[in-house]
């Protein structure tokens, strides 16, 4: 399990979505569905219609892994928490299934899995990242529109796009400090 960058600092993950390279093919959505066995009628990741979020491009939409996440704040059991590397996850054994996190998420990123009795959402394929692999959506993207950036790595090219302001979060005015950043063309 690699939780340290080359320089020894902690990872600080973010997702960069380059909408100028996205053709809206939904390969990422399908890969996510297969990898995470998402039940019918729900999604962890999908392409939002071009009008959402004020963008003309299709938007890959999933949990924003907010640094100030309302879901984390309201979760009474602390089953939902933010890992030190920035990924917001749900600990299945602690969750009572109260659905408060689903109510609290302004991005509509969570769904309730009736079979499991708990909510679910994108976890950036945390298990794969821990194993040194890329998330299923990133691996599958045909246009190479998706990348996991590591903000703790000063040499990471994708992190540089975030630092320069080229990639920006959706609805920052909500104050949740999302960790998914979008590159939007003219």
């Amino acid at each position, binding site marked *: 399990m690699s939780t340290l960058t080359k320089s020894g600092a902690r990872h600080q993950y973010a997702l960069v979505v380059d909408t100028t390279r996205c053709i809206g093919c939904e390969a990422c959505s399908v890969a996510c569905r297969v990898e995470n066995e998402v039940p019918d*009628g*729900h*999604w962890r990741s*999908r*392409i*939002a*219609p071009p009008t*959402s*979020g004020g963008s003309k491009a299709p*938007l890959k*939409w999933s949990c924003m892994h907010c640094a100030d996440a*309302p879901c984390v*704040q*309201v*979760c*009474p*059991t*602390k*089953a939902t928490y933010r890992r030190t590397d920035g990924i917001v996850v749900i600990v*299945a*054994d*602690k*969750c*009572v*299934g*109260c*659905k*408060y996190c*689903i*109510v*609290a*998420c*302004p*991005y*509509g*990123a969570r769904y*309730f899995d*009736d079979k*499991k*009795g*708990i*909510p679910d959402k994108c976890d950036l394929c945390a298990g794969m990242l821990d194993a040194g692999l890329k998330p299923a959506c990133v691996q599958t993207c045909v246009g190479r529109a998706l990348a996991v950036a590591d903000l703790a790595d000063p040499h990471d090219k994708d992190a540089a796009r975030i630092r320069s302001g080229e990639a920006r979060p*959706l*609805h920052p005015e*909500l*104050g*949740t400090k999302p960790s998914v950043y979008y590159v939007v063309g003219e």
Partner: protein
Amino acid sequence: MVWGWQIAWYLFLGGLGAGATVTSLLASRAGPRVGTIERAGATLAGPAVALGTALLVFDLGMGRREPWRLVYLYLNWGSPMTWGTWILTLFIPVALLHALSITGPLPPRWERPVAPVRRAAVRARGTLKVMAGVLAVSTAIYTGVLLSAPPSFPLLGSWLLPVLFLLSALSTGMSAAVVSGYVLARHEKAEFDLCSWSRIHIGLVVMELVVLFAWLTVGAASQAGGDSVQLLVSGSLAPVFWVVVVFGGLIAPVIAHIATATNGNSQVALAGEAGVLAGGLALRYLVLLAAVPVIIGPAL
């Protein structure tokens, strides 16, 4: 909104139990004699809140299948639901003890096991009253804070919602206590003075009406909040909103209470109380149904 009818009833019954307790405490100030409203309000509170809580637990996913997980609910001091869990955990037994401390003995078969508890409760009556009052008001406010804390639904995210829920809780609890107090008084052939309650209730309902419209006005300021308000006042929820919540639950009861306060007609006042109860429940339902999220995410 993923929360359905169970949560609407939970919010309603929690508020009702809180309001019934406050009504009972108000009634106790009238004099040393323990009147029917005082007893009815106190007796209603515990079971109402417990039933609401049971509905909530029944709505849980894994918490229902593996109830031992419920202990985790007490953990996150930053979560309104954890506050609520603590408040309800304390309020339900305190409300039951408060009821025991002011009611007469049950039939002997039932009284025997509770007798020692009742004796202790009677001794601690003063403390129980203070605790019941504080926990009742906390419960009523909490039901509003639960919905107003997250930033996801602009109409709900206003501090006016807890105020509205507090007023509605006091009002519905008063209605429940007054109606059952009335029935009890008939049964005991005791005197029953509705007029003074009608006067208090008019004030409460008028305040609730003002706060309701202030809440809608503030809520209409944002896009999603405006959509929610529109759903309530002119959209698909409008018939229930205007007929059951506004007219049946607020305006008609005011008229009924004015009629009672002036000519003492108790039948009219009791119909008004029924309206308050129906309006209070409908309000909780509609608040959940009208919640339009701040970002309309991609629909499937």
